[in-house]
């Protein structure tokens, strides 16, 4: 029985490859994995104790990234159309609305990364209206992550794909895999110091479609 399923899967995948290689002629899309993208990592803790103090803070700067060119864009180019998305803590901005000069945007697709083959024609790309509304909704359990308040950990929600309209008006899909250094979430029992210092390092994978279509 199991063998039968494997054989069937093999046949199906061969068929799928065949279909892909014939229909997407110009540029076969590739999926790239980015590890440890620092996103305004913690540089200190305000003196005192909560609620007035004891809060970890970063430099307050976004890390900008170009999906089209697969590289980090210097912060000095924040007002340019060179970047597609920016990361600061758990907030992700798109080069759209009041976040940047381009006409990017995004929405969150619920489902599997590999399952998203075509962006549906009816899909609405949202634009940033910081700080109250982002194309990729900020906050726990609203967008891409859920905050575990008991253990003080941020977990990306599985089955969330960020569908992005880049600065150049092309399309990409992106899945966040982890929020901690090395792509490994610290243990619930880890010390606060470990949890603070390991956070704000994104591991994600993305597929950029350079031909401008909504098909991956």
């Amino acid at each position, binding site marked *: 029985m199991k063998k039968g399923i494997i054989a069937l899967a093999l046949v199906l995948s061969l068929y799928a490859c065949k279909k892909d290689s014939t229909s997407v002629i110009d540029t076969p899309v590739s999926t790239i994995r980015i590890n440890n993208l620092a996103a305004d990592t913690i540089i200190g*803790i305000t*003196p*005192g*104790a*909560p*609620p007035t*103090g*004891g809060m970890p803070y970063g430099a307050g700067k976004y890390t900008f990234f170009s999906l089209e060119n697969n590289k980090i864009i210097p912060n000095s180019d924040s007002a340019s159309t060179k970047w597609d998305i920016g990361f600061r803590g758990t907030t992700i901005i798109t080069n759209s609305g009041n976040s940047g000069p381009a006409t990017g945007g995004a929405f969150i697709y*619920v489902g*599997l*990364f590999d399952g998203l083959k075509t962006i549906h024609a009816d899909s609405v790309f949202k634009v940033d209206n910081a*700080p*109250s509304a982002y194309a990729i909704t*900020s*906050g726990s*359990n609203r967008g891409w*992550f*859920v905050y*575990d*308040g*008991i*253990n003080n*950990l941020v*977990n*990306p*929600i*599985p*089955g*969330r794909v960020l569908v992005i309209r880049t600065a150049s008006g092309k399309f990409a899909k992106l*899945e966040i*895999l*982890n929020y901690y250094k090395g*792509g490994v*979430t610290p243990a*619930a*029992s880890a010390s606060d110091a470990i949890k603070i210092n390991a956070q704000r390092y994104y*591991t994600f*994978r993305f597929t950029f479609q350079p031909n401008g279509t909504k098909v991956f």
Partner: protein
Amino acid sequence: MRIYLFLFVFFIFSNLSAQQIDTIAGSGNEIVVTATRTERKLSNVAIPVTLINQKTIQQAGSVRINDILQEQTGLFLTNGFGTGVQMQGLNPDYTLILVDGQPLVGRTAGVLDLNRISVGNIKQIEIVKGPSSSLYGSEAMAGVINIITDQSKSNKLKLSARYGSFNTGDFNIDGSFRKNKFAYQGFGNIYNTDGFSIRPNSTERSIAPIKRYTMQHNFNYYFTDKTNLLFNFRMNNENITNLISVNNNGNTISSKGFEKNKDFNATLQLTHRFNNKIKNIARLYGTRYESTQELVTSTRVPYTDYFKQQFGRIENQTDFTINNQVELNTGFGYAIETANSTRYDNSNNTKINHIGFAFVQTEWKPITPLTLIAGARFDNNELYAAAFSPKLALQYKATKKISLKASIGRGFKAPDFRQLYLNFTNIAAGGYSVYGALEAQKTINELNRLGQISSIENDFYSLNNLQPELSTGINIGGNYAINKKINFSLNLFHNNIENLIDTRLVAYKTGGAQIFSYINVKNAYTKGIETNVDFKANALFTISGGYQFLLTGDKDEIEKINAGKVFTRDANGFSRLMQRSEYIGLANRSKHMANLKFQYEKNSWFTNLRFIYRSKWAITDTDGNGLFNTNDAFAKGYLQVNTALGKTFMSKLSVQIGCNNLLNYEDPSNLPNMAGRTFYTTLSYQFLKNKTKNRII
């Protein structure tokens, strides 16, 4: 208490001919009262009941009620806001805790801390499983635990002292006095512990130093053989001190926490038997729970938390013995419940609820082996919708060895004051707020008018008057006395829980702070098998064991899984669809729980060895999909072994030594209340014990 008052009532008025022994009241030695609100032989109750007697409690070396409950099949003691009990997989919120038939109040986050109850004067503990709101009203959704204190029939005085690890001392005085028409029973308990910490490098103790004082006085006056007046009061005070030291980036901030809890209850009860068919009990009951917590930090203004709950009830119960086959019990009453707290809008603002209720139950024995029970109760509340709770039960004694039981009942839990009125903002953690359902509508509308609300979530519109949470429970089982040595019992249970109240995000403040409130949203189930075996190897040696298999689930979560909307992650961290088989249901539940006890008694000696096992349970949703599945974090299953040894000298002096957690099992993060291996020794002395004439009504 009722047991004592009505003891043997049926025997007086019936001739003890062989045929009549198996009346509704039944035969056998063990009598329980909780399942039907009337005395019944344990072997004759159509509802699953566990009875723990005084001897079992003492020989287990228990100090607080939770010590003995944790050794019972299917009960798990939870920690967090005190020690609560999980029954048939339902949270502590849903088990009604009674002392002498009357409810205790003062729950924190739904948990009534069982540490408040000393076992020093307990005669027996009755555990009724399955919804029992048809007799008891709110909170009896999973079942009822009734703690029945000793009301001795003799003149006696007993002192006992126990000392053990962590400087834990427990001292009891228990005495009774009887003369003519008057009877008095008094009890005092002092408990003191230094507490302990099993977390390394932490000055904060997981069990803080505690001092507790409990006393209970019980007065009875028998006007005639048919009329009795009872006055009972009980007091429990506790003082807890905790030194908390927070190390924050090199700065150590020390603070001192003080907690004072006061608990008081009083009963005035008049029992009168009109004739051999009608008995009436009129009762006035009042209780108060007051809790003050103070956190003093060197650098800041002290934080104070105050909570007071009061409950008063007047009720009347009439029992009609129509004939040997039919008995009818009816009752009605009125209760007032109030609460004041700094957790509400204003602690001077008293929150009040009025409840009127009536119940009726009939027990019918059409033929000797069959007992049928039908009952219902109606609770009308000022603050939320009324609740109607019916129950049906039957017992069929198929043969002398086999008896079968089945029952179906409805239970409910009224929304508590917290769920209605809480007004709490956590400034330390991002400024989120939690408002009770009534408070939320008022406050959010007001904040919205002032322009302080940035967005309102869909759930805001479902905020309405909260409905009671409901359960429908079915219990089917039986008892098989294989021979004189082996007894086997089995119970299958299924609880369908509707309207569960959960916190939901209802709005955002400008600036992003979240506002949560309470809504009736969840539907869940718990189902399983409970089985117990007793094996009496010979006159000296007994083995008893129990096992519970439990499955739980949230119905909305299962629907989402079946619809393919729930994901988890594979080894690469990539999302994948979660399978139904990976779903494990509600957190903090163990699929397997078991206990095994070896007991040896010879002459004035006894010794026992007790094993308690609990399989792993889910603690955190680490894969972020919002429910609990095999990919999440679990606490490890564990085995706890306890043992005790004792001897009684000349029927007066008893000496007992014991060791709990013999294997020294520790899990600081998941079982902070479980100390490593601890030792104790107990001495008790019975000064006098004179039998006096029994008074029976």
